[in-house]
């Protein structure tokens, strides 16, 4: 036993030394994001703010995004209750994703790159590396928890108590540890590091969507969701510390499973079997397009399935909406006075969220071309009659195709499920959902355009497109809650597009953004056809 983990502490110290910059950015980034908005929320809470916010967040669309609150009457809705309600789920999710990415990059990815082989040739235990990586991640999350608690408390705001602050921090920290545990298991099961990253993020996404459904229909069911053990602790109101115990046990079980799996597999191999392949290629592979489809097939299929699940999860909420409306007099008034049905309003919000997520896949496909270039996978292909024009536009074409299909599946499955859940009372048909979805097509094209621009002129910046997507997502997410200034919310591309079916289709905007996106792609192409190819340097 001891032998397996021999020298893990050496590696642990090495990781801290190597990662210290990353750790600082990590803790400051998530920590400040989680804790530092207290003054902003104090602004919102002024006057009738708390009351209004309480009612806004009773809307199922909002619950499916930010989660529930245990507070039952608006008068009990304090600043602390609101802060935890709006922020905790999102911050926990954020912490989970970062921790999962970190764990895979320190375990499976190093293995795939052949670094662990070198490390293992020294006097270091077989599992020391994974152990050091998980200990490091836990250590960072513990620091993060204390940092968040400390910063929140330091504002000295009313109802932001010390206990609640540290519970908030601990909940975020435990979310990170859960994410790390899931990622460590996936790193053992999957055949490659990218599959491990993809599946870990997929599971986290699934947990988030499943809880959206259970939060609206029956919150008790969310208690069975690992994510629930972090965001349902209700800091500042119920201060439910016991849930963290479940989170701890879950994390522990994950780590134990991961080590058992790792102990009995070979380095560089996974548990999913490798089948014997073909001696000759199928005809369908024998072109740039065939090759790119083959390479992206795994990612495309998993994301497309995720889009369908997402649509189904959100769609199933529609059935509960009328009941929900009956229970709240204020909500009922709000909707009957605005002339928009609760279903339509929900669709407008959720569609923007979903199409934002759909954009991830096309960006990934465009970025994949550079990943291949960087790993020298294309060197032998450059020396054939394949042109750069072909490589570039085939990637873009595939990305656009993935965007079109992604919207179809997300909007279609949302509509299909929603209509069957609503039964006879349905006020919308499938076409309404599809139109609302394709209304956002220009935003997807815009992200493809940005990725194309990066690919052509500064390919290392391809990852920044995800950052901008994340940023727009946050802006849209909080746009519904906070009253952001117009210019600020317009920095997110989706904010330019009207939200159908609540608002009307805007032809000039649709065309303008589409044209700008195509121009970005063309500019990207100019760069791509001129620049030096980069090969692993």
């Amino acid at each position, binding site marked *: 036993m001891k032998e397996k983990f021999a020298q893990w502490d050496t590696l642990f110290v090495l990781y801290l030394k190597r990662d210290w910059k990353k750790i600082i950015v990590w803790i400051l980034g998530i920590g400040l994001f989680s804790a530092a908005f207290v003054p902003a929320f104090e602004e919102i809470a002024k006057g009738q703010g708390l009351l209004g916010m309480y009612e806004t967040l009773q809307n199922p669309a909002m619950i499916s995004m930010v989660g529930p609150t245990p507070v039952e009457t608006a008068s009990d809705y304090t600043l602390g209750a609101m802060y935890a309600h709006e922020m905790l789920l999102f911050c926990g999710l954020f912490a989970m994703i970062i921790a999962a990415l970190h764990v895979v990059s320190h375990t499976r990815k190093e293995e795939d790159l052949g670094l662990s082989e070198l490390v293992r040739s020294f006097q270091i235990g077989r599992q020391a590396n994974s152990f050091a990586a998980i200990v490091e991640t836990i250590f960072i999350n513990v620091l993060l928890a204390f940092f968040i608690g400390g910063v929140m408390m330091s504002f000295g705001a009313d109802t932001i108590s010390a206990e609640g602050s540290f519970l908030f921090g601990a909940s975020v920290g435990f979310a990170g540890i859960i994410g790390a545990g899931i990622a460590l298991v996936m790193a053992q099961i999957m055949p490659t590091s990218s599959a491990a990253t993809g599946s870990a993020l997929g599971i986290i996404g699934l947990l988030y969507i499943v809880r959206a459904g259970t939060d609206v229909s029956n919150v008790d069911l969310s208690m069975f969701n690992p994510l629930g053990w972090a965001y349902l602790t209700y800091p500042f109101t119920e201060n439910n510390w016991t849930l963290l115990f479940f989170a701890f046990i879950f994390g522990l079980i994950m780590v134990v499973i991961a080590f058992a799996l790792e102990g009995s597999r070979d380095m560089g191999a996974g548990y999913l079997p490798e089948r*014997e392949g073909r001696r000759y*290629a199928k005809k369908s592979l024998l072109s740039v397009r065939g090759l790119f489809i083959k*390479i992206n097939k795994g990612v495309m299929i998993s994301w497309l399935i995720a889009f369908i699940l997402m649509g189904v999860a959100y769609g199933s909420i529609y059935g509960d909406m009328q009941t929900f409306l009956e229970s709240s007099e204020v909500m009922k008034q709000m909707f009957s006075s605005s002339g928009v049905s609760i279903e339509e309003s929900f669709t407008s919000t959720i569609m923007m969220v979903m199409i934002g997520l759909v954009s991830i896949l096309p960006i990934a496909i465009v970025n994949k071309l550079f990943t291949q270039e960087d790993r020298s996978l294309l060197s*032998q292909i*450059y020396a054939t009659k*394949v042109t750069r024009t072909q490589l570039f536009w085939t990637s873009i074409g595939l990305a656009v195709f993935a965007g079109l299909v992604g919207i179809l599946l997300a909007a279609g499955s949302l509509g299909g499920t929603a209509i069957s859940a609503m039964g006879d009372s349905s006020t919308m048909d499938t076409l309404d959902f599809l139109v609302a979805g394709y209304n956002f097509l220009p935003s997807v094209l815009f992200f493809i355009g940005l990725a194309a621009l990066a690919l052509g002129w500064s390919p290392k910046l391809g990852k920044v497109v995800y950052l901008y997507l994340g940023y727009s997502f946050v802006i849209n997410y909080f746009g519904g809650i906070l009253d952001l200034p117009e210019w600020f919310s317009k920095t997110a591309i989706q904010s330019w597009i009207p939200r159908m079916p609540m608002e009307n289709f805007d032809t000039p905007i649709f065309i303008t953004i589409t044209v700008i996106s195509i121009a970005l792609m063309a500019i990207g192409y100019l760069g791509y056809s001129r620049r030096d190819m980069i090969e692993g340097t």
Partner: protein
Amino acid sequence: MTEIVNVQGLQKSFGKFRALSDVSFTVNTGEVVGFIGPNGAGKSTTIRILLGIINREAGDAEIFGKDTWKDSLEIHKRISYVPGDVTLWGNLTGGEIIDLFLKLHGGGDKQKRDSLIKRFELDPKKKAKGYSKGNRQKVGLIAALSVNSDLYIFDEPTSGLDPLMESVFQEEVEKIKESGKAILLSSHILSEVERLADKVVIVRQGEIVEAGTLDELRHLTRSTVTIEAEGDVAEMASVNGVFNFKQKDNQATFSANNQYLNDILMEASKLGVKKFESAPPTLEDLFMRHYEG
């Protein structure tokens, strides 16, 4: 004999780092040109310029009389290339990748492919992820050798191959050469270059330091002489053109400047020679001088 590759005064920098400062050479039909030099000398950079993967800053690079950057497409129809570190898509099999390369190149020979797969003892049904370094290299080689090209560019093609496979490769290259094709071969395995190359180009820190046929180059350098004599061989040490003198009893080994070979022989004959062996410099000797200097 026509000129296939013509490179003149090539320059290339990466940021502030000057990778190539002056590279010129030519490759003709039916000729194998060995392209050698220490690590980081600029061999792969030159080859990437020839392939149009990167662009030069100054100088000319032409293949078949066409510009390697502007007319790369025309050029690529008639060349084959194998990099020193073949990387493959892990989820495709070797067989699939070979077929793909043949198709993307055009003009592949299926029979040639199958016979090469046999000769190189490659299992084409295995996913590339499971290939060893040498097996990945074989995939690249088989794909390049199965197509009919007029110019073959190899950048350390045999790195990772076992000696048996190395000699299979060398036989294949000899066949190509006999059919009158041009070959540019960059390699650190000097015996390989010595066996295959008609001409050698030595590059160091982005500059060509030596170029010519092996015979020409040998002429410029020193032979290794071993001598055994009845008299005191130590006297040889002071003769003009003798370097690196080492003595053991009445036997001595030294390098001799070829220009002074006659003087050295005259001196030696005074000592009552029992044995006199002169070995021409190997490429390695030649090369060491440039590596170290």
